[in-house]
């Protein structure tokens, strides 16, 4: 009893209030920003209320995850993987199509994007695989073939939806986790080299609109009303915010709808327009602290599986932040990669909460064996 009590106490005392606090603060900033996008002008929008509900669901999911030792999740990894592949196939066969993309599954009143949850499942599955292998020394290319296949099956299913953004994120998670487990330098170069060589093939398989988005990045003015429109309007929104911003609910670019996808992929543009450079710096600082805390979890995890899962989660979160902000500022092509905790959207929000829950989970259990 005593032992168990101390264990529980230790777990709770190791709860990282900073990570949790940052998560809540950024989510609240997100709610206000979404409120602002639906503000003046048009008919009152209620999506910020929906976002609040999603945050609450996310918190519940996070709490639930905290009570499940991540080792148990790791044990279930292949079952979870199998389930998510089946679900992704279900989406491909009978998913709900919204604006040309078949991404959603609906049951009852809920619609959900399994591709978001797939990211977490892939992280856990890769962790399990690497943990089992326990190769001495560095991984070589041939050692990576199996994990590559593990990643490729869901990635292709997701890319076909089409959801290029998520597929790219999964690819990045794979690279990061492989790097973390340790691959020899030669293999790393071969991997990088083959990625570059495969670019033209990737280009060949891309859809026209995807190609034009990449071309647009190089010269947005080539088609200012077409594919260049998003980037141009987003840059105008961000830049016109200046140092101090235009003020809450006063961003003309977002309020007058010049900014497309303003409450989802371009929520950062809305925030930067209204809060300015100072505001954007503060927000980015919050994200950086979150990532630093995450890296700390990776580094100080109790075991390899803890480090691997946390590493996957941190790289996923960081990639979302960097790519989303890079996209809204016109540095990356427009691929739908949402901003963690800010962008409107239930599946991604809940997924983000679960992944942060995993970080907390791993951190809480780092000293468990010392008792």
């Amino acid at each position, binding site marked *: 009893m005593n032992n168990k009590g101390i264990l529980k106490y230790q777990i709770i005392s190791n709860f990282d209030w900073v990570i949790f606090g940052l998560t809540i603060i950024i989510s609240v900033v997100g709610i206000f920003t979404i409120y602002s996008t639906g503000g003046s002008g048009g008919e009152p929008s209620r999506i910020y209320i929906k976002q609040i509900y999603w945050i609450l669901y996310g918190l519940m999911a996070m709490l639930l995850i905290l009570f499940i030792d991540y080792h148990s999740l790791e044990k279930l990894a292949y079952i979870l993987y199998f389930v998510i592949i089946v679900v992704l196939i279900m989406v491909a066969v009978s998913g709900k199509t919204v604006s040309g993309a078949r991404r959603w599954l609906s049951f009852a009143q809920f619609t959900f994007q399994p591709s978001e949850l797939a990211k977490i499942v892939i992280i856990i599955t890769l962790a399990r695989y690497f943990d089992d292998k326990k190769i001495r020394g560095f991984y070589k290319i041939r050692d990576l073939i199996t994990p590559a296949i593990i990643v490729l099956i869901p990635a292709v299913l997701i890319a076909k939806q089409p959801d290029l953004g998520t597929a790219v994120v999964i690819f990045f998670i794979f690279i990061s986790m492989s790097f973390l487990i340790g691959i020899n330098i030669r293999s790393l170069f071969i991997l990088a080299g083959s990625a570059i060589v495969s670019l033209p093939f990737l280009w060949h398989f891309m859809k026209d609109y995807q190609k034009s988005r990449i071309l647009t990045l190089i010269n947005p003015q080539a088609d200012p*009303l077409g594919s260049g429109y998003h980037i141009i309007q987003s840059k105008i929104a961000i830049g016109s915010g200046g140092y101090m911003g235009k003020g809450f609910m006063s961003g003309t670019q977002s309020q007058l709808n010049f900014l497309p996808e303003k409450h989802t992929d371009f929520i950062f543009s809305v925030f930067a327009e209204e809060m300015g450079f100072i505001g954007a710096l503060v927000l980015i600082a919050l994200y950086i602290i979150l990532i630093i805390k995450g890296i700390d979890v990776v580094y100080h995890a109790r075991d390899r599986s803890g*480090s691997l899962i946390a590493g996957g989660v941190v790289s996923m979160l960081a990639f979302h932040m960097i790519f989303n902000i890079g996209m809204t500022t016109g540095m990356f092509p427009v691929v739908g990669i949402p901003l963690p905790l800010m962008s409107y959207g239930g599946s991604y929000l809940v997924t983000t909460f679960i992944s942060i829950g995993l970080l907390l989970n791993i951190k809480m259990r780092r000293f468990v064996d010392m008792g």
Partner: protein
Amino acid sequence: MKIGGFGQNFSEEIKVRMLVFTLFIAVSFSFLILRLWYLQVIKSDELRLQAENNRMRVVPLKAYRGKIFDRNGREIISNRPSFNLSIIPEYIKDIDGILSLIASEVNVDTEKIKREIKNSSTPFQSIVIKKDISWDEVAFIEEHGLDLPGVFLEIEPMRNYLYGETGSHIFGYLGEITRTQLEDLKTLDYRLGDFIGQYGIEKRYESILKGKRGSKYVEVDAAGRELNVFKQIDPDFGYNLYLTIDIELQEEVEKLFEGKNGAVVAIDPKDGSILAMVSKPSFNPNMFAGGVSNTYWSNIITDEHKPLQNRAIQGQYPPGSVFKIVTAAAGLEEGVITPDTTIDCHGYFKLGKKNYRCWRKGGHGRMDLRNAIIQSCDVYFYTVGFRLGIDRLSRYAFGFGLGSPTDVDLEGEKTGLIPTEEWKESVKGEPWILGETVSASIGQGFDLVTPIQLANMLAAVGNGGTLYKPKIIWKVDTTDGKLINKTDSKIKGSLSVSQKTLDLIKDALHGVVSDQRGTGRASNIKGIEVAGKTGTAQVIRMAEIEEKNDEEIPYEFRDHAWFAAFAPYENPMIAVAVLVEHGGHGGSVAAPIAGKLIKNYIDRISNFKSQISNLK
């Protein structure tokens, strides 16, 4: 359960990798921050301007063009409301139904409209589907307002020429600004699609008439929906122009000219004011007001009679016998004849081997100057001209305002032609021939004049020798009647002939109309003493057609008929030049028109004066 140890090892193992990973993320975030700094600090002003341009739209408000009035304050040209049928695509659900309802009454191209709607990027911006619809169509749209959501009428001012074709060459017309004009007029705030004066007074006084465009600054959203008005600058009215034209006289002359081609200019000899200026055939400026149709335009420019030409200032014709006024004055002033010099007319003037014939076959017999003018004896003036020589004769012609523009304030005035020896040498490269002097002395050969030159010359003869610059603008007013500018009468010169010579000529010109044998008897009016001179300008000199009656000669070979006059003879109130193209004889064709128009004008003026004195 013992798991421990491994975790610590792994931490050691990944130390370097975690550092690389952290560095990678740090560099990435640094780039993001640099990028934000670039956009939000360095490029901020530029992008803020773009954001403003995004949401601000300047809606131009059309200026009201100044009105044009005649000398008696009668409105000639004004603006009427014109209704443009417009739609806002966003408000229309059933576009096919609505278009078919509209098409049942209004002639519109539904396919074209549908294409325009499809191409429009801002669904809240209105699209004009038909300009200037008729009253019946307006009534139909108003009546069916409830069945036509998203359909509405836009009102804009449209130029309205109240007298239609009357005076079209003076007033001109409006047309859409061309690209070249737009480049030239860049500083004056014109835009593509603007209508500006393209001809006549509308063109010449464009800057006075146009007024100033207003603008409405509105905030719009991405769909083009107007949200609110920041500020509005109302358009300014253009200035009103008062012309020297007497529109009633103008109408009368146009009526007298029906079915004929030619030109009439009537001038007030006291100050050079143009009372009427007619050129036929004419055109209807109302057809241009909303953009000229292709059919109308091509009809006009392919018409062989050239209705766009203002013959009054651009038509150049031989003056014919009207020129004898100049020859007579030159002869007297240069002393080659006296009033009593007599010359025997046998029907021809012999020069070398060639005979120059008088228009009267048998000859006029013994003629003095007065009779020679009254009966328009060619031989008499052949002799005078021959004695003068071409250069002396032409010097007087220039002095009478011929051979140079009158400088009337209208576009495109032609100079006419008065030949000299030097001119022929330099232009034709041939020496002057004496026979050409003979022709020139009766206004044939090289001589060319415009109707306005002759009217102005007669005005000078009538008023005692003062040659005015003809004026067509009387004054410029603001809409609320404040005087901006009044045109002074400008003297161009004097006829530089003695009073005695002038009196003699005036008396003879009176005789042309009043004498039993006068060639201009047809212009005689009861109660008004008219003085004038007929002229018949040969278009072509061919023996075979000279013998024929007018009706037998093809139209384009028939002579031009001139009559130039002033009245009343003692104290002239009006001077006119009437030219009927291919009309035949001046005495029979042009003179009656001149008589009627003089009577119309003088009767109205004296009626007006007597009414005034009755009031007193």
